[in-house]
């Protein structure tokens, strides 16, 4: 029985090459593209601008596969954008790409793909899966510099049983080379940056327009409680941020904490930014949670950050304490702490 594979296309080089690779197999392949919500003041969503839609459609035609747009504007707004806004208003820094992966790509889109007869959903992510002992495992991409397993750490067994990542063994250069060899429409497109629904504009302007009440001025303190100045609103800051604090100091100051309770911004030198102990919630695991005595774990606290050896200690059924082997910078409430064992991504939780 040949598989029926829906490939999530964006008009970008990665998903285009993933589609091209799938068409070389025996699988029946068709392309899907999500129409995502965009801030009406900022122009189209960067993931599905008219140019991108045209490029994806052209790529599908080049590959001889059917192509369909699926409207996800409402679910994307409700399940990704609004939680993002709420999170910022509450002082955390959410990662909308992860909720998009869990709820939109591997929720809404997978369900639509299945309604259209697909047995599998493929994406252009750099990651790998493996079926061992009857269970699905999520692995880092063969080449770690492009690995995207961090944003896929929210996937469950049910998701992974339908997931295909055709680019998992390839480097970006190899992908670009394939795109050029096949003359794919996306071959010269640059990698995407920033939040897709803001059309390239600054997320602070977006938040200012959406939650103006969160732009309340308040004090800036150092970690010793001394007042250093005033901020224009906590929403405009992210833990670990250095630029734009608006203070002059002998050594660079970083945002250490956003204290929503008293609308206070805590800043300090880089050394105070690093933390080796922090707690996480909203836990989710690809298979089983790691055992508390596991000594072979590493943790990664940002999409592009380095992993560090760590242990996990359960606080209750939904929260855990993470102890990294050394202080790690950029531990940001709202972002995900993702655990690995070797090259295997185990899942994780949201930093509290």
């Amino acid at each position, binding site marked *: 029985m040949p598989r029926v594979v829906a490939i999530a296309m964006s008009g970008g080089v990665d998903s285009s090459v993933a589609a091209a690779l799938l068409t070389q197999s025996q699988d029946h392949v068709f392309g899907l593209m999500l129409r995502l919500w965009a801030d009406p003041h900022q122009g189209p969503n960067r993931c599905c601008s008219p140019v991108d839609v045209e490029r994806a459609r052209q790529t599908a035609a080049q590959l001889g596969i059917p192509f369909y747009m699926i*409207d996800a504007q409402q679910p994307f707004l409700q399940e990704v954008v609004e939680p993002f806004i709420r999170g910022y208003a509450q002082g955390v820094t959410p990662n909308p790409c992860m909720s998009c992966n869990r709820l939109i790509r591997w929720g809404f889109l997978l369900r639509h793909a299945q309604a259209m007869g697909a047995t599998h959903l493929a994406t252009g992510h750099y990651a790998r899966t493996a079926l061992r002992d009857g269970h699905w495992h999520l692995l880092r991409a063969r080449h770690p510099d492009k690995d995207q397993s961090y944003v896929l750490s929210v996937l469950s067994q049910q998701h992974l049983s339908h997931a295909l990542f055709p680019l998992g063994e390839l480097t970006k250069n190899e992908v670009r080379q394939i795109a050029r060899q096949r003359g794919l429409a996306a071959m010269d497109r640059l990698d995407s940056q920033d939040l897709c629904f803001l059309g390239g504009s600054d997320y602070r302007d977006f938040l200012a327009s959406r939650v103006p009440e969160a732009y309340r001025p308040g004090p800036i303190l150092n970690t010793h409680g001394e007042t250093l100045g005033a901020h224009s609103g906590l929403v405009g800051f992210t833990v670990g941020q250095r630029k734009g604090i608006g203070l002059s100091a002998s050594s660079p100051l970083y945002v250490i904490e956003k204290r929503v309770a008293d609308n206070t911004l805590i800043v300090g030198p880089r050394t105070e930014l690093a933390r080796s102990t922090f707690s996480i919630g909203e836990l989710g695991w690809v298979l089983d949670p790691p055992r508390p005595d596991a000594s072979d774990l590493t943790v990664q606290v940002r999409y592009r950050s380095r992993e560090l050896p760590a242990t996990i200690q359960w606080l209750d059924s939904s929260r855990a304490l993470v102890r990294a082997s050394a202080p790690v910078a950029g531990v940001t409430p709202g972002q995900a702490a993702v655990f690995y064992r070797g090259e295997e991504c185990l899942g994780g939780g949201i930093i509290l």
Partner: protein
Amino acid sequence: MPAPAVYLDHAATTPLDPKVLAAMQPYFAAEYGNPSSIHAMGQHAEAAVERARSEVAAVLRCPTQDVIFTSGGSESDNLALRGAAFASRELRGARRVLTTPVEHPAVLRTAEALARQHGFSLDLLPVDHFGQVDPDDLRRRLTPDTAVVSVIHANNEIGTVNPVTHLARLCAEQGIPFHTDAVQAAAHLDLQELTDAPALISIGGHKLYGPKGVGVLRCPSQIPLLPEITGGGQEHGLRAGTHNVPLIVGLAAALKLAAETRPVEHARHSGLRDRILSRVLAEVPQAVISGHPLQRLPNHASFCFHQLDGNALVAALDRSGYACSSGSACKTGDPTPSGVLLALGLPPAWALGSLRVTVGRSTLPQEVDGFLSVLPAVIQAVRSAGGN
């Protein structure tokens, strides 16, 4: 995975009939003359165009000089609306365009352009919840200032047929030009009664098993028009441009064939249509027929389903091997409820879930049954995928 698709979208376009293709063939290469030329090559081509004109006139039962060849239904609509509006303004200073909210975009956008760019005022006749115009409403709204009236014959989205002969006569009594877009109707309905009234009638080739890119505007001598495309004096000066001889020949052959096969096909189509209408209503929860249940095109079944993304449904049906369409269809995935469906009074949550199923000459009963056997499950799957 899908077998070759069963085509249930004949309102979008129809396959070219092999007899039409055969009739066209000589004029693509061997008979390449320009009908306007003096020499024999030109005369052969001219004879072909005039033979086609006679054939069209015979089917419509109108004088040959009423038949103007265009590049398709949209151009016919544009020539009728703009041509009549500008002529009425020039001749009697009339400045109002009267049409309906359920027109094809070729009419509605043109009427809007006349209002926006050319100083006409635009007036929309009300329609009932089947999409039909009440002749009394038209009668009440006709004034000496009415430049042109346009009411769609059979609606492309909902299949509803309007009493256009009656409407045309009301306008004729007051000397006001009446136009109807009969692009959907021409394949299925006898237009002779309508043609007896002085009505501008748009017809397109590809909706009736003819070629794309060719159409007719029937222009009765009583209705003055100004040309839209100026140049050489072709088509009585109403439509300049070298005749597209093979396509014109093809359109005439297709229209003739449609008239010949109409009685048989009408009955056969209606049977398939009614099977679709009744089975869907019986088997799909939260479904309504859009348009008139009886006074509709014989090949046309259309529905609205509550809380369903019509685009996603059409995509899923395509993967199941059935080609249909949706009134909210939009290839960019940004569906907006169809203006036609909203004009019927349907709320957006229903209007976004529209489906149009249009059978054709090659549609077999077992294909319709196959479609009806998968549709309820596909609808259920798409509904739950959308979280509804």
